[in-house]
């Protein structure tokens, strides 16, 4: 039977899964909303992946990345659990070995990864203020009554983008409301918003970094043509957006799962086990640590959050 490697990227907004074969071709992939419940999202994701498989495949490695990587890593018995910076870099260099700069804007975090000869040289990640770009765009789309999928397309039709404060998303939002109320056209506001996302990203995440071509843009927001256009306009360089740009993290971690294969076969049937977390505040000292206990099939397996290490 064919051997396969599963990569799961559990972000704050969306969960991505991909299965690669031994030659690193994509066998199947899936993309669903996390909706604040990574455990349920991953169960649904695995169902979808399993159903979309045309032939049976034996999974010999599972990797998890993204902000819920630790929790899901335990749940699916992953052999690799790695941060999203490394996963994204490995995924991207697989398709674009010469890439020098990766721009990544996701639902919650934005990152910039600088590479040289296929190795990460440096990276930057948003501090407190540039956060929430992807989720910010989708909430603004809702406010303007536009589908998020049409958002970037509409931006391209604008001939005169309005100026929207780029300092932070809170200011951008109040500026946007103001501009809408004084009567600017919807597409001009949307184009202005896309541009402000670009400027905000370059000013915060890209501060002090030297951006060299080739440049690859990925993460959920890379699906927005408006943002891509303004990146290219501001940086005066071509911007590559791969059709699988949203899957790069998942692909990267699947590649790592293959690299660190441990010979153990894994199952996609996690959907049938019960996996629960219970949170509580520890009262034993004045630190009041938030303890999270994890149960698999009602059996306690691990706990996180204790500062003293004596409480589980």
């Amino acid at each position, binding site marked *: 039977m064919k051997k396969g490697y599963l990569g799961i990227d559990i972000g704050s907004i969306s969960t991505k899964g991909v299965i690669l074969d031994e030659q690193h071709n994509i066998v199947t992939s899936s993309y669903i909303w996390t909706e604040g419940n990574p455990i349920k999202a991953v169960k649904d994701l695995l169902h979808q992946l399993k159903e979309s498989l045309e032939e049976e495949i034996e999974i010999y490695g599972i990797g998890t990345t993204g*902000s819920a990587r630790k929790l899901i890593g335990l749940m699916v018995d992953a052999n690799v659990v790695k*941060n999203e*910076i*490394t996963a994204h870099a490995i995924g991207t260099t697989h398709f674009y070995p010469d890439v020098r700069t990766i721009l990544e804007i996701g639902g919650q975090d934005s990152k910039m990864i600088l590479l040289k000869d296929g190795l990460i040289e440096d990276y930057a990640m948003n501090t407190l203020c540039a956060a929430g770009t992807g989720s910010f765009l989708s909430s603004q789309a809702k406010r303007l009554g536009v589908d998020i999928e049409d958002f970037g397309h509409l931006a391209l039709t604008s001939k005169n983008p309005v100026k929207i404060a780029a300092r932070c998303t809170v200011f951008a939002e109040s500026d946007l409301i103001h501009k809408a109320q004084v009567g600017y056209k919807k597409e001009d506001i949307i184009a202005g918003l896309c541009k402000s996302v670009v400027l905000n990203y370059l000013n915060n995440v890209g501060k002090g970094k030297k951006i060299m071509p080739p440049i690859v843009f990925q993460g959920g927001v890379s699906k927005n043509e408006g943002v891509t256009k303004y990146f290219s306009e501001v940086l005066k360089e071509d911007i590559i957006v791969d059709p699988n740009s949203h899957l790069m993290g998942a692909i990267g971690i699947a590649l790592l799962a293959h690299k660190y294969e441990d010979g153990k076969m894994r199952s996609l049937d996690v959907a049938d086990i019960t996996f629960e977390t219970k949170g509580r505040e520890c009262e034993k*000292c004045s630190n*009041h640590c938030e303890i999270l206990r994890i149960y698999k099939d009602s059996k306690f397996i691990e706990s996180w959050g204790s500062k003293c290490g004596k409480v589980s």
Partner: protein
Amino acid sequence: MCHCGIIIHKEKNTTYNALGDKMDKIKIGIPKALHYYYYGTMWKAFLEELGCEVVISPNTTKDILEQGCKLANDEMCLSLKLYLGHIHYLEEKCDYILVPRIDNYGTFEQTCTNFLSLYDIVSNLFKTPLLTYNVDVAHKKSELEGFIHLGISLGKGKEQSKIAYFHSIEKFIKMRKKQRIQELKKLNMTNIKLLIISHPYNFEDTFIGNSIKKILSDLNVTAIDGEMITLNENRNSEESLSPNLYWKYNKELIETIPVIKDNIDGILFLSSFPCGPDSLVNELIMRKINIPYLNLIIDEESGSAGMETRLESFIDILENKKTVR
């Protein structure tokens, strides 16, 4: 022999009132925050030699942080919020709280304005009477004079206070030497070595620093505390990085970099939000050194996931570089 005819064997460290009754020692509170991490050892030695009882607030807890945040205004940095939390803890647990006003140790040895304003902020917010002394070397007010003033306000003589000051300095230097030797030993380790550039009141604070220390040790990284190796003989080595810095504590932090830069794999700049001097000095230094660096800014957030992702990615880069080399 007392004038009323009763013989008193004066025990060391015991205070008597005018009638010759034995009094409890004066209890002096020291908040375990901000400049405790610079002068704590000296204060304790000095005050105890003068017969006081010293009460040091405990390691920072979530309660202390929350109290501090309640008392602070929104412009104060995390470290200052913690300081107020520690003072709050000491309220009604001591007779006086020691809050000095340390402005500078010379024209180009300025402290952060927070250190200058502490006395006034605390005396406005709390009821416990304060003990204080001023250091303003640029205007001829030395640390020694400050400590003598402190001794006099405790009812001790000038000479006695002066001797206690010199004893406390001795103790302080001894401790620093020991710390430095221990920290320098870490340079011989063969795993990834990360130089931590952080004010001691951040990295040494258990609430802020411990989670970072734990993540680093889980990643098999040796964390070298730059502040502990600050070497007097390397004084002014920071001038190669910037000739005209005037923040005393930041200068002390960065002067380690030129000295050990060939022995480390990377630098972690750790600052509390929104630290003014750090935001300028760290940014300045980052652009001048050719060592991989990471700047982490910490605030009140209690989740450590963001911190983990950033540190783990950074260590991945350092490990890759090490293998390639």
